[in-house]
């Protein structure tokens, strides 16, 4: 494209500028990658080795750290819990969110805009600030220390942005298909399921990533609502683990690697989706 920063054919002053920029970018890339690499290397060492040779490769590759963290450290269970919470929350969000979007975007009625605005208000209301009434509510519903309480709250947390993105998209679908299907005797649910949803698939993929990452990473709500260790998801389990194993740095690094590496692996295969998904709310 015109005006690109190409090194060749540039004037000297511009060449110098490009070199300075490249140095900045490379420095920042190293600043991101090195701490991750060091974390992975440290996770195979002994605590003594981490302090003595922090930059070196491990003397022996100690896979036992992982076995210990996964088993005795309880990370196997934490991982499972995170998965269950994310799976059911996102399932509910996609179902109820797409249905609500359909009900808002594909019908003409007076209340459509107020209903839409109620969903939108949720985008700007920080749910953390509502923790006192939520706490009292969950106690009253007898849902303290259950997964269901968290799934409901995560669903509520994710619905507003989901409706914002999906309703916006569904509005752009022309009505012709719908009319044709209606003539063929398709009822409203059939139109939602067979016509609109298949056309909405690309947006569904974005919404899934946009919501699943924060739910998978959430710490605050599990902290408030869960007491049993056997229900805790990864971030909360990690804070328990860090309290118990303060001086066993090799295990701490192994636990961090267990929490971070799966996300990194997924990202390597689907970085485009992740980048588009995570920025979906901020970029049109």
């Amino acid at each position, binding site marked *: *494209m*015109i*005006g*690109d*920063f*190409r090194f060749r054919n540039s004037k000297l002053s511009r060449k110098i500028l*490009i070199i300075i*920029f*490249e140095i900045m*970018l490379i420095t*920042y*890339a190293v600043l991101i*990658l090195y701490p991750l690499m060091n974390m992975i290397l440290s996770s195979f060492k002994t605590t003594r080795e981490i*302090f003595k040779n922090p930059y070196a490769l491990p003397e022996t590759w100690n896979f036992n750290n992982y076995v210990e963290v996964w088993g005795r450290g309880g990370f196997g269970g934490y991982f499972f819990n995170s998965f269950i919470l994310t799976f059911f929350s996102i399932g509910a969000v996609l179902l*109820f969110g797409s*249905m*609500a979007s359909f*009900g808002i975007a594909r*019908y003409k*009625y007076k209340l459509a805009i107020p*209903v839409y605005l*109620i969903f939108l*208000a*949720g985008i*700007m209301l*920080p*749910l*953390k*600030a*509502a*923790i*006192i*009434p939520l706490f009292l*509510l969950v106690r009253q519903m007898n849902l303290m220390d259950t997964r269901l309480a968290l799934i409901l709250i995560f*669903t*509520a*947390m994710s*619905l*507003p942005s989901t409706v914002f993105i999906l309703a916006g998209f569904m509005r752009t679908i022309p009505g012709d298909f719908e009319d044709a299907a209606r003539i063929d005797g398709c009822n*409203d*649910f059939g139109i939602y399921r067979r016509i609109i949803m298949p056309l909405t698939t690309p947006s569904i993929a974005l919404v899934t990533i946009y919501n699943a*990452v924060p739910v*998978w*990473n959430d*710490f*605050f709500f599990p902290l408030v609502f869960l007491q049993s260790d056997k229900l805790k998801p*990864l*971030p909360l389990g990690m*804070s328990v683990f*860090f309290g118990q194993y303060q001086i066993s*740095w090799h295990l*701490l690094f192994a636990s961090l690697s267990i*929490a*971070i590496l799966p996300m990194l692996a997924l*990202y390597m295969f689907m970085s485009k989706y992740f*980048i588009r998904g*995570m*920025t979906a709310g*901020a*970029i049109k």
Partner: protein
Amino acid sequence: MRNNVKQSLWILFFVLPGLLIVLVFIIVPLFMSMFNSMFSWVSINRDQWVGFENFLKIFTQYPYKDRFFNAIGNNVQWFTTTMLVQNLLGLLFGYLLYKRIAGANIFQRIFFIPVLFSIVAVGFLWSLYLNPNMGIVNKLLTDVGLNDLTRAWLGDEKLATPSIIMVNMWRWVGFPTLVFYAGFNAVPEKVIEAAYMEGVGEWRLFRSFLFPLIIPSITIITVLTLIGSLNVFEQIYTMTGLEGGPYFSTDTLGTLFYRTAFGSVDSGQPEIGIGSAIAVVIYVLTFGISAISIVGLRKKEVEL
């Protein structure tokens, strides 16, 4: 007529489940917070109507006042530092990616990696690296002969908040980078071509053409930074603890609110009335400021 009823029922069927969840878990708690803030509380039971007394307490009475203004001051520091360092860096990086500088694709992917990690994992990772005796940061400084620069990063009242903000930036720079990158790419190529034809220099092109055209991206990043700065919690919890140590120097509205709601600010008892008043302040700040910015954004968009 029958058709109308049928259609209403279908709409209800589609909208109701989601609407109920949002009403019960987001909208009602908002009004409950306002309502609760007007009462005095005994443990978790509503007691007497006290009007605005809880607000008066957090604005004027020891120790609430001191904690509250200390915390909000730190939130302001979060916002200003993040805007000035993280978002300016994001703007520069986004611009360089847009200019297809060598390696742009790889940089884009690398910068976005930590955005996906949980704040908790990032906070704990860096609390190990920033450990004054055993952490790799001080170790590295010592090994390259910069002993004078080693610090108790999270243990020094003056340094603790900036250190945590830096860690948070490490995690998040990729986000504004990508948003600005997309903003630059949305600028019509004709504008750029015309400017080059006129012989406009690179800096003037940026200042007078590109910058005004990416104002929507700037507004979005500003609003998100505001919301993020008001919601800081996990960063403090993992790196300096719920008390916002050392000596409250890293305390924020989020941690103060949590301690007030679940006990330990003054007496160790939960103070629901005061906590709800703090929640209302957080609501007003977040909702008010983002509403203003979004209205502002609309206006700017029309100008485009």
